[in-house]
């Protein structure tokens, strides 16, 4: 039998090698498959249940978002970024608005910054809740999904009241906010924080010490810190491998430097550690929200931004810590109202690269667990 570590996924391209080979089975997981979180296609090469190699085929959800940007003004492109990582639309909006603000050389006023942070952290929680529910569902625990969706609903209700949309929020504008926070916003956020704290314990009660859950996740899809850095993996996946890298601390943007919070890190870099890191991030997000709600200053919500946005010629790269990792925007301006080029550095796309490394030599069931733990959104992978 061939050593699985010497096989490259590229070997899959040569069908004669596997032709009439009774030992290996090439199986197409997806694009229509319940566990690939959308339309990811994974070509698996199996020896029995063991994964000898795999290859991801992406692009089934490609909409050409980056190309569309070249034909829209800066303001018009803002809603499009919500459609990339649609479970963390607010983070995308923050990343894009901050990048254009950096290009223009303006900064959002403090009140807008605080509200931005609250909404972004709420969105991080919503994204993690969706991850937890679907990840547990993939591993076979069906109940956490309904618990997380029940609580995610409360976050979406706050979004809906704030800007009228639940999923693709378009919450921020270049230079600040369009709308003042609705009356009772702070009270409602505080109420939500009090409501969700015991619920997080409830999720942990179902899973953290569950024997089957621990057996299914410990030592599965292990990735070392060195490999993470080599592959450019960011976010909770990187932190679970023991690297204390969070852009909120490393390159503080918005006004994250005003808040006191910790960066949870893991030790082993396996699926269980990634789970623990994300569970800890829930609590850190709550800490940030609590501090931000108490500290919202009075004042304007919009900086002085011209009606027609015409940034000076130049280019800018700015990245934020989205729920899934580093979300970067690279914008080149030619001085006109439309960007010359927009390039997005999506965390899901980069993290997905690690799938092959994490799954090789493991079992089919682990591939599902690893896809779930990478927390990919195909809208962002394919853009």
């Amino acid at each position: 039998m061939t050593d699985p570590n010497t096989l490259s996924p590229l070997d899959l391209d040569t069908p004669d090698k596997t032709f009439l080979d009774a030992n290996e089975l090439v199986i197409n997981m997806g694009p229509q498959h319940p566990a690939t979180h959308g339309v990811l296609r994974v070509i698996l090469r199996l020896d029995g249940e063991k994964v000898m190699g795999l290859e991801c085929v992406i692009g089934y959800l490609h909409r050409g978002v980056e190309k569309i940007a070249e034909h829209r003004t800066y303001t018009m492109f803002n809603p499009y970024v919500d459609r990339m990582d649609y479970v963390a639309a607010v983070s995308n909006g923050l990343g894009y608005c901050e990048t254009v603000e950096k290009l223009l050389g303006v900064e959002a006023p403090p009140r807008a910054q605080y509200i931005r942070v609250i909404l972004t952290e709420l969105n991080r929680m919503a994204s993690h809740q969706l991850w937890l529910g679907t990840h547990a569902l993939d591993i076979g625990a069906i109940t956490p999904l309904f618990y997380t969706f029940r609580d995610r609903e409360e976050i979406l209700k706050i979004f809906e009241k704030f800007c009228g949309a639940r999923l693709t929020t378009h919450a921020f504008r270049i230079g600040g906010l369009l709308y003042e926070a609705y009356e009772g916003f702070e009270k409602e956020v505080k109420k939500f924080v009090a409501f969700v704290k015991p619920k997080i314990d409830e999720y942990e009660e179902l899973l953290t010490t569950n024997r089957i859950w621990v057996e299914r996740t410990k030592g599965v899809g292990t990735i070392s810190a060195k490999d993470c850095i080599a592959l450019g993996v960011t976010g909770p996946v990187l932190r679970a491998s023991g690297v204390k890298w969070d852009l909120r601390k490393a390159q503080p943007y918005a006004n994250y430097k005003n808040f006191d919070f910790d960066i949870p890190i893991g030790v082993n870099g396996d699926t269980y550690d990634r789970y623990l890191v994300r569970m800890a991030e829930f609590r850190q997000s709550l800490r940030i929200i609590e501090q931000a709600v108490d500290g919202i200053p009075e004042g304007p919500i919009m900086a002085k931004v011209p009606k027609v946005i015409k940034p000076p010629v130049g280019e800018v790269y700015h990245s934020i810590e989205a729920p899934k990792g580093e979300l970067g925007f690279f914008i080149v301006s030619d001085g006109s109202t439309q960007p010359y080029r927009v390039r997005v550095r999506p965390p899901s796309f980069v993290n997905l690269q690690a799938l092959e490394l994490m799954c090789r030599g493991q079992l089919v069931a682990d591939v599902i667990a690893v896809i779930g733990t990478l927390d990919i959104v195909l809208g962002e992978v394919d853009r």
Partner: protein
Amino acid sequence: MGEIVQYIQSYLGSDKTPGAAGNLFWEFVYIVAVFLGLSVAVIAMNWLERKILAHMQVRLGPMRVGPHGLLQPIADALKLLLKEDIMPAEADPFVFWMAPLIVVLAAFTVFVVVPFGPTHAITDMNIGILFMLGVSSLSVLGIVTAGWASNSHYPMMGALRSSAQMISYEVAMGLAVVSVILMTSLNDTGIGTLSMIGIVRAQQAQGVWFVFKFFPLGLVGFFIFAVAMVAETNRAPFDLPEAESELTAGFHTEYSGFRWSLFFLAEYSAMIAVSSIAVTLWLGGWLRPFPNLLNGPTWDLVFSLFPGVTFLFFAAICFYNTARMPKHPLFKIQTMGLAGFGVVLGLIGLALFIPPVRDRVGDIFWFCAKVAAFMYLYIWYRGTFPRYRFDQLMKVGWKVLLPISLAVLVLTAIAGFVEAPFKEWLSQVL
């Protein structure tokens, strides 16, 4: 004519099962009754599973078809019957056609020996438990052929997983059963029994349910069986063969419509079948709780009222929900339907209070109540546990359950051997 009536009546006073008495008429009646009862149980189980699981998961479950979705299983069955019957072009038609039949036949045939009461079984074989284990393990044949005949990757993997799983868990299961059969031999004659009715009678004679016999040996054996039976029926957390998130639907991925519903039917009747084995072997079968402790005519009367009271309780729930139904005219038929269902349940409940009926159905009631508790456990597991991985499943089967069940078997034998001398010694000392 008179002879026929006499033939029919001749069985009534008998204390044997119709099969053992050789009365063809009553055999036929029992077969029809068991088959109908099983079908109703599967339908009820379908509804209950969806409702209970839904309430565990903070949702309502079926609510639209009939009051509280009571008619949903019927609507589903109709839908499945009307669906187009698809057979993959590359499938092996005969084997593809045979597979669900094998599974259903195996699942239903085991009920031939299930003892609902001392006389309420289709027949009583002297190899009853062996027959049940043997026939129920035939269903793995149907599953393997289903996966193979589909000629597709996912069903194939599901079928292979399934066969490996069912065969491994049968070993631990069988050893746990043997320890019970050892226990049945602890009487004056020293001869045990494999007959299902005999096993319950042995528990009656020894005055203890085998789950409490030689504490904790009986309990451990029961626990092993309870784990193995979940694996045997491919239910969560051992539902790898049909692991939805991995293999889409496992061995029945390519099946649709009526054929698929046969697999569904077989799965649920297999669940009921293995639960009946567990109830018969460890939980005293048809015996009511505390038959020796709380005996005497008063307690007999109290316990014989349970079936009627249970049905009246269900009827009361129906009436309570009828009162809570929305008062909108659109809900008029649903409200009437629910009230009618309550009336039917109430009438059944009242009928169960009539003395001759009361005495005949008590056994069946306690048996079904115990099986129903197992059915609830199945649903509970499904709502709580993640799924085991294949290698972990094998590890649990071979490295944990098998050694423990062997140890239980050996210790039971030793305990049975030293029990009588020990008691004698104890009585001399005291």
